[in-house]
């Protein structure tokens, strides 16, 4: 026993920090910061796991700028189209970069961009990217990673209050209560050999789902993937779970799509082709196989997917595809995997020096009829069991203009089109213009592109974005977006219009101090909630917000302050306000491989329309963006400790306390008695 404690002590306190681990931690933090810029303006759940994995993969296999292609640089989401073009043009005109700091000579790149790039790029001699793969090299140099995560809410939720064995007669109550325990846990394994081979396995059980019992045995969700790159004629080969992203996303883009954010120039998704899927998102992926073949200047991709999806199936028909991935109750389990979805698709992309043209087609078949419960707002939603969608996309550089766009059509002859251009008239000024039109009848399964809402249909709009670097250390970014919904939307019972404006000023005072001010104004129409009129009555909903964020680093400490206020009103009612303020403190111990993050946050949002979304640091592969509404405070402690060079643990505990006299949090099965909500999370990473 004594030896055990001595070993444990040595393990905990005498493990050493290495520079490599510091660099990995810095990259992880950098990725979280980049993601925060995107997610800050989004109310949709964005798949952080895929975002993190893709960029972490780039960090492990840096892009050689002297040999890079547009497709490779497109993997860095913080670079705008103009910046990518400028990097490629610089290397083409001036030859190889001698040092990474030569990037300062590239137009449109400032030190902030270059510092971000450093983790993901290098400069070196051109090498053969497709050497033969030898089995013994794969075994010797391949890297394995195993991740195990457990989450637990410390307060008992309503769904766990009634167990079936306690009340066997109450079938109605039992069908709605959770079958499993309140632990969330997931297991993830991945293997990669250079940038050529990727294999992996993911299993997940959500809180409330049964892990081992009469209703279900094992994990609720399993996923497997394999990807090979640059093997003979094949550019990419995928099997198992994968994603396919082509063009501007009007036909196929199940992944997170770019939209309105403080990266005002990055407005359309990148054409990343076929790639493996290893996230715990249980709906936005394909299951089957696919391949991309390189034929001269053409890339030809084809894939087939066959998977079961969730739906409330009755007599061969269902109303909606359930994408939550929750199978916690008897009701939810009865809807699991009730519909078979088959997808076959392909893409042909022709790339010339400054011109790219592509064609994408996808056909989807369901073994049950999708028949939404029709009302006015969803009158044009897809119904049936077969759909074919095709689209043409393009991208070209003409003088200083980068033109891009895509036009797609479904088999009911409905159309969606997005077109735009970006250009840089002067080195410190970059502009982007974008127009989109999505017909109300256009409704396809895996589209994701620039849009006010998460659905690509029933919208037209015009977007202008500008980024200006007027002085050293300063960057100004702004966008204006005017849009129209020609048909009623959910919660808006008549055609409506809206506008969005954003202005952000970034100031990097010193290397260790940075700050920004972000002003946002939004005006859109919504139903008048108090109206009893037969005909729909719309009122204007106005929201304005101002955010100030300051980050500073002092030695091993780093701090962040955020202060944000917003005002909102519906029609001519009085303005309601919301305020949020937070203080972050992070500390990396210099002598032991331990990192601590602490946050205290106060929020006061009078009305639901004044709600806030605030990004939080979390365990690896996780990123929390909780929503705040009401009056209260939240705090968390996040620990990261490298037990050995290969074994690391993360632990987070967070609590939200409301001070507005509420005695019940949330509702239904998620209801908690009291005014506190506490969550604990643990992740163990083992690399070998």
């Amino acid at each position, binding site marked *: 026993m004594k030896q055990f404690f001595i070993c444990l002590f040595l393990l905990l306190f005498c493990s050493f920090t290495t520079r490599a681990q510091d660099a990995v931690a810095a990259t992880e933090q950098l990725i979280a910061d980049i993601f925060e810029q995107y997610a800050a303006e989004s109310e949709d759940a964005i798949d952080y796991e895929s975002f993190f994995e893709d960029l972490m993969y780039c960090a492990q296999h840096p892009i050689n700028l002297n040999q890079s292609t547009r497709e490779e640089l497109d993997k860095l989401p913080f670079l705008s189209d103009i910046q990518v073009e400028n990097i490629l043009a610089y290397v083409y005109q001036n030859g190889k970069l001698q040092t990474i700091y030569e990037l300062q000579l590239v137009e449109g790149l400032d030190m902030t961009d270059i510092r971000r790039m450093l983790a993901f790029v290098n400069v070196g001699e051109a090498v053969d990217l497709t050497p033969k793969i030898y089995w013994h090299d794969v075994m010797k140099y391949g890297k394995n990673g195993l991740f195990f995560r457990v989450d637990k809410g410390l307060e008992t939720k309503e769904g766990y209050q009634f167990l079936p064995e306690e009340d066997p007669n109450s079938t109605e109550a039992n069908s709605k209560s959770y079958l499993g325990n309140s632990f969330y846990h997931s297991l993830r394994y991945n293997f990669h050999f250079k940038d050529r081979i990727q294999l992996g396995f993911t299993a997940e059980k959500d809180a409330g789902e049964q892990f081992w019992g009469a209703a279900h045995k094992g994990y609720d969700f399993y996923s497997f993937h394999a990807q090979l790159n640059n093997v003979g004629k094949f550019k990419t080969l995928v099997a198992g779970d994968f994603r396919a992203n082509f063009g501007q996303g009007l036909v196929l883009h199940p992944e997170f799509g770019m939209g309105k954010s403080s990266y005002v120039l990055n407005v359309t998704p990148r054409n990343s082709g076929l790639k493996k899927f290893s996230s715990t998102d249980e709906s936005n992926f394909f299951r089957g196989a696919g391949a991309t073949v390189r034929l001269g200047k053409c890339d030809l991709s084809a894939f087939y997917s066959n998977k079961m999806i969730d739906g409330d199936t009755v007599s061969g028909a269902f109303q909606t595809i359930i994408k939550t991935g929750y199978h916690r109750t008897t009701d939810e389990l009865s809807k699991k995997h009730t519909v078979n979805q088959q997808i076959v698709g392909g893409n042909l992309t022709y790339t010339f020096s400054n011109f790219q043209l592509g064609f994408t087609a996808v056909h989807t078949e369901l073994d049950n009829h999708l028949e939404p419960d029709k009302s006015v707002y969803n009158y044009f939603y897809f119904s049936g069991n077969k759909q074919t969608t095709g689209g043409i996309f393009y991208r070209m550089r003409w003088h200083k203009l980068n033109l891009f766009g895509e036009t797609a059509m479904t088999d009911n002859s409905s159309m969606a089109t997005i077109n735009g251009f970006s250009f840089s008239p002067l080195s410190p000024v970059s502009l982007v213009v974008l127009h989109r039109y999505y017909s109300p009848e256009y409704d396809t399964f895996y589209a994701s592109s620039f849009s006010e809402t998460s659905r690509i249909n029933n919208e037209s709009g015009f977007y202008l974005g500008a980024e200006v670097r007027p002085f050293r250390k300063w960057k100004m970014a702004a966008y204006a977006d005017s849009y129209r919904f020609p048909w009623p939307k959910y919660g808006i019972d008549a055609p409506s219009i809206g506008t969005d404006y954003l202005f952000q000023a970034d100031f990097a005072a010193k290397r260790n101090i940075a700050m920004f001010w972000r002003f946002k104004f939004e005006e859109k129409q919504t139903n008048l909630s108090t109206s009893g009129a037969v005909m729909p009555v719309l009122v204007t909903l106005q929201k304005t917000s101002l955010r100030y964020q300051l980050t500073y680093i002092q030695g091993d400490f780093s701090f962040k302050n955020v202060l944000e206020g917003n005002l909102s009103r519906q029609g001519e009612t009085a303005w309601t306000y919301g305020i949020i303020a937070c203080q972050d403190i992070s500390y990396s111990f210099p002598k032991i491989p331990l990192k601590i993050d602490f946050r205290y946050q106060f929020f006061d949002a009078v009305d639901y329309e004044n709600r806030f979304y605030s990004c939080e640091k979390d365990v690896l592969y996780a990123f929390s963006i909780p929503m705040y509404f009401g009056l209260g405070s939240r705090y968390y402690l996040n620990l990261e400790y490298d037990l050995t060079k290969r074994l690391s643990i993360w632990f987070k505990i967070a609590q939200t*306390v409301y001070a507005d006299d509420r005695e019940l949090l949330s509702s239904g099965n998620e209801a908690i008695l009291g005014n506190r909500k506490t969550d604990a999370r643990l992740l163990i990473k083992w690399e070998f």
Partner: protein
Amino acid sequence: MKRIIPFLVLCFTYQCLRAQLSTILPTSTSIANTSVSNTKEWMSFQNPATLGYIENTEIGTQYENRYLISELSTKSIQLAVPTNLLNAGLSFSHFGYSLYHEMMIGAGFARNFSDKFAMGLQFNYYTAYFVASNSYRGAFLPQMGLSVKFSSNFSLGFHTFNPFQANIQTEFVTKRLPSVVSFGTEYFFSPEFVWRTQVDKELSSNYRFASGFEYQMLQQLSVKLGAYGSDYLVPCLGFGFVIRRFTLNLNCELHPVLGLNTLAGIKYCFKK
């Protein structure tokens, strides 16, 4: 009973009108209670990070007489000791009188990191006397603070008192204890002239916005002028006197409804 009823009425009126910090927290000698970013002085139950900046052992006491009513007075004493590793502080505060009173004792620890920033943590035990049950009830209330010097003349302070919103539960009522979050700035126009601003939010009260100037007219005399606004705008005036190792502070505030609030504090600084 004759004393209790007027006292409770007074307390109720007072709590309604005075939308600022709880009575158990002594008002600081920084004008308009703008202490969160004050890098020159530490005050009991205020931002514990500022404890990190003290260089000498010091002891002090303070008496705050609210609106010339002795029953609404807060008395406090404080002791601060600097060490090589951490600076430590002890504080005690008392509010009320024999039939109703609250007390709080706290031990704080803070460290100055290369004079760039300081962090502090204080552990307080709060207790109140409940006449209905003739008993004391208490709770642990932590507080934590941060003070960052961005340059020699500009700094920023953050402080939270009772961040976990601990309350006292009796058989009959839940006594809500103050949970306060404060942000503030300090800017030295010159070594003699400083401007401080602060925003406080006690979670169940209105926001409090405060700002004040402090001018060291002579080596022995400083003048302080400021105001804070919550439900009402309250002007504040103060004087500071330095006599050898003693520092004497006299502050007053004029509430438009409740009247004059006065505060006197004396502090002695030991040699190093």
